[in-house]
Structures are given as C-alpha cells and as structure tokens.
C-alpha cells in the first residue's frame, strides 16, 4: 500500500509542530509502521534534535534536491526503531532552495516503501508552508488553546480550504484543564467552536514533553506519559481507528461533550 503523506502545520510558531511530528512518528513506528519524517523547516532545522539524531546527519534534503546524494543517503535511521527514518532540513540554506515540486518528487519516491510520511512544516503561510503542504494527502493543523494561536490557525485553515486540500484536522496542544476551569485558558470546546474542523487529538500540557525533547526521546515512547498517550491516540486515528478521547479532567463531563462535538460538522 502506498504511504499516506501527513503534513503538520500551524499558523503561529512554537505551538508544537516539531514535537507532534516526532511523537507521531515514534508512535506509528512502535506499532510497526514504516515511517519517514521530513523536516520542512529549512534554515531552522530541529526535528533531528527532538528525535535525538542530530549528530548522525551527513546529508540533508537540499543535498538530495541538488543531486549531491541519493535520497537513501539522506535518510537517517532511528536509534531504536529500525523502520523510522528522518530526512533532515538543511541548516544553512534558505527556504528557496526547495520547491513544492521537489517535495512532491521526494514523497513520490518514498511512497512505495513507507506507510507514513510525516512532514514538519514551518509556521505561517510563506514558502516553506507551501512546500510542506504540496505533497500532503492530509494536513493536521496544530494550535494551543490561546487566542492568538487560534486566530492564526484559522487563517491557515482558510488557505488550506482554498487550496482544495482535503479539509484539515485539528490538534489542540498544551491544554491545561486547571487553567480552563479557572477561565484562564480557552477550552477545547471554544477552540473547536471557532475553527469548526474535525478534531483529531487533544494533548495536555506536560513537562515531560520538554524534558523528552531536550533528551531527544519523544514522550510517545513512555507508556506512563499522558501527553505520550494523547500522541499515540492521534497515531491510531491517523490509521483510521476509532479511539475515544482521553478524559483529561475526570470531573467535568466536558469530554463527553467534546466526543459529541467531534462527530458533528
């Protein structure tokens, strides 16, 4: 079966795209999927760091595009998961060294030998974003439950809809149920109500995510991590499995309502 190309994008920067790509990749590969991650953030690469592969880089995606190496040579195999690969971004080149057709060509070459190709997009709607969505079969838009991040996510969704990409799915990251309860954070319902697209996952705020990123060990590997569980659930949903949403806040009944809302629209 040919691979599904999934691009993770956001309007605002720093909301967790790279974290999500690393964790979804680990979750999918742990389940036996053949996964290739592509760091689409040319000039600001960091997926390699979050995946703990930074000192294995020899070639990068621009080397592939400019013919200095074969695609295989730029694919770095994960330390633990033999079916997980990373194609790193170039550190020093500017984003114009990659075009949307380059991205399509690379993904087409990978499609037959992978189950999932995950692309980490830079924030915003500029060139790097257009490169990252060009080959996508599916786009996940990630946001934090925060007014400015949601506003920017809305904008990206509008553009994805105009590009006639399959309607994107939403990941709400860094939700803190206590802050929501005190009305100091938008609730998942508020975010969904505004954006009106399908929800694919809610990831709680979790210090372990930051620790994991710094160590190059994504939390999806940790069976006890709540955020890790949320990412594993998203991975299952990407495979088309139905997984109930986690109850991040046992008392409130909010989650029942979210379950219902996600079935809507």
């Amino acid at each position, binding site marked *: 079966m040919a691979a599904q190309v999934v691009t993770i994008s956001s309007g605002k920067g720093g909301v967790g795209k790279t974290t999500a790509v690393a964790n979804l990749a680990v979750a999918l590969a742990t389940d036996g999927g053949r996964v290739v991650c592509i760091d689409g953030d040319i000039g600001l690469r960091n997926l390699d760091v979050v995946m703990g592969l930074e000192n294995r880089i020899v070639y990068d995606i621009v080397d592939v595009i400019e013919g200095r190496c074969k695609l295989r040579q730029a694919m770095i195999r994960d330390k633990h998961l033999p079916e997980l690969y990373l194609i790193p971004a170039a550190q020093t080149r500017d984003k114009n060294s990659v075009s949307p057709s380059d991205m399509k060509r690379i993904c087409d070459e990978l499609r037959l030998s992978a189950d999932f190709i995950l692309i980490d997009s830079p924030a915003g709607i500029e*060139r790097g974003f257009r490169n990252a969505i060009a080959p996508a079969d599916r786009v996940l838009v990630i946001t934090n439950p925060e007014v400015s991040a949601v506003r920017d996510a*809305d*904008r990206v969704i509008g*553009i994805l809809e105009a590009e006639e990409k399959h309607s994107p799915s939403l990941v709400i990251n860094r939700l803190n149920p206590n802050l929501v309860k005190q009305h100091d954070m938008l609730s998942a319902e508020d975010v969904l109500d*505004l954006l*009106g697209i399908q929800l694919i996952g809610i990831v709680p705020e979790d210090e372990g995510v930051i620790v994991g990123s710094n160590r190059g060990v994504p939390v999806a590997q940790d069976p006890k991590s709540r955020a890790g569980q949320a990412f594993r659930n998203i991975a299952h949903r990407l495979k088309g499995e139905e997984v109930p949403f986690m109850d991040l806040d046992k008392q409130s009944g909010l989650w029942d309502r979210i379950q219902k809302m996600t079935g809507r629209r």
Partner: protein
Amino acid sequence: MHDLHSLVQIKGLRDGLLVSLTDAPWEDQQSALLSHMDEQPSFFQGARLALDVGTQILHVNEMVELRDQLSDRNVALWAVISESPTTEHTAQLLGLATRISKPHPEETPLPSKGPNDETALFINKTLRSGTRIEYPGHVVVLGDVNPGAEIVAEGNVIIWGKLRGAVHAGSKGDENSKVCGLDFSPMQLRIAEKAVNTKKERQILGPVVAFIRNERVVVESWKFS
C-alpha cells in the same frame, strides 16, 4: 517570447502604483514585472502596489509567491484586482483589497451599484481570519465571520451565522444600511461613518440587527413580527 515591457503597464494612483498585466502566461508576466522593478529599483522602493491581473486565474501559491518577491524588493502588494472570481477569492483570503477607489482607467467603469440596487454577494462558507471582503452592494454570508475576518459592504450585511469579526456596512455613507447576525459579538462594527464600541455593547442572545437611529448605531434583538 513576449516583449517584456508591453506586458506591464504602470500608472500612478493617489495611494500607490497601479500595475496592469495582460493575459499572457503568468510566469512571463511575473518575470516581466520583477525585471521591470529590478531595472528601476529606486522608482519602486517602498511603493504600495495594486495589481490588475485581468482574467488571470491565480491561486494562493502564486499570489503568495509574488507577494514575497515584491516584499523582497521592499514593495508592498496591497490590492489585486481581477475579473476572475478565483483570483478575487485568493486576494480576499490573503487580506488584500480587491477594489481600488479609482475605477479602471481605460474601461468604462462598472455602473456603480449603490446599496439600493438589488445586487448582493452571496458567500456560502465561514470567513476565516485574514479574509477581507469588499463589495459595492449587499453581502450575505451563510456561515460565520470569524475574528480577524473583515467585510466592507456599501449596502447591508446579513450573516446567517456568528459574527465575531469586523463589519462595515454602508461603507460609502448610506446610513440606512443594516447588519444582521444570528449571534452577535463583532470585534468591530461600523455603519456608514458611525462605529459601535463593541466592548460596551452587552451581549444579546439570539438574532440581532444593528442600524442607525438618532445618529447612533443601535443593536437590537431581532423581532419577528
């Protein structure tokens, strides 16, 4: 090959430059425009550019690329005028103006469709952040108007959904214009020259209509009679 300069026409406007392109292939036009600029950088430096692209069909990709290339040259693209609905839609999504105050120089100007006219623009989707719609008539939206989206209409604005963005009805001064919405919490609301302090307005549940009474914009619950 097209002669580069015949592809691009440039005119001065009160608030910037108007560049008119022909319907030659887009890549040719784009490179003609850019090379034109590179030949006379001092003329274009810091300019605001309105682009009349005629019947060209432009998608987000192409327009963003051109906007990036212009901004690399320190030129701001602020309007794209087009006869193609697709291109116009793209410009709206990027928040660019789609009309400029001066009518097309050569063509006979479109008969100005005042708000009393029957024309309405029907939009069958949610307007998301960054979208700007301008229309010389009424605007009807079957969907929400999200925060960060903006509608400027010479006539009435009817929103069959939630109004959370910015709306200016009667933008050419018609004080009889109205704004209606099913759920009303606009970030900005103006009718003709009058604005409402949306922060002060108490939230009214259910369908709402806003209009001018005694020189003030009032917001009332919609009554079925």
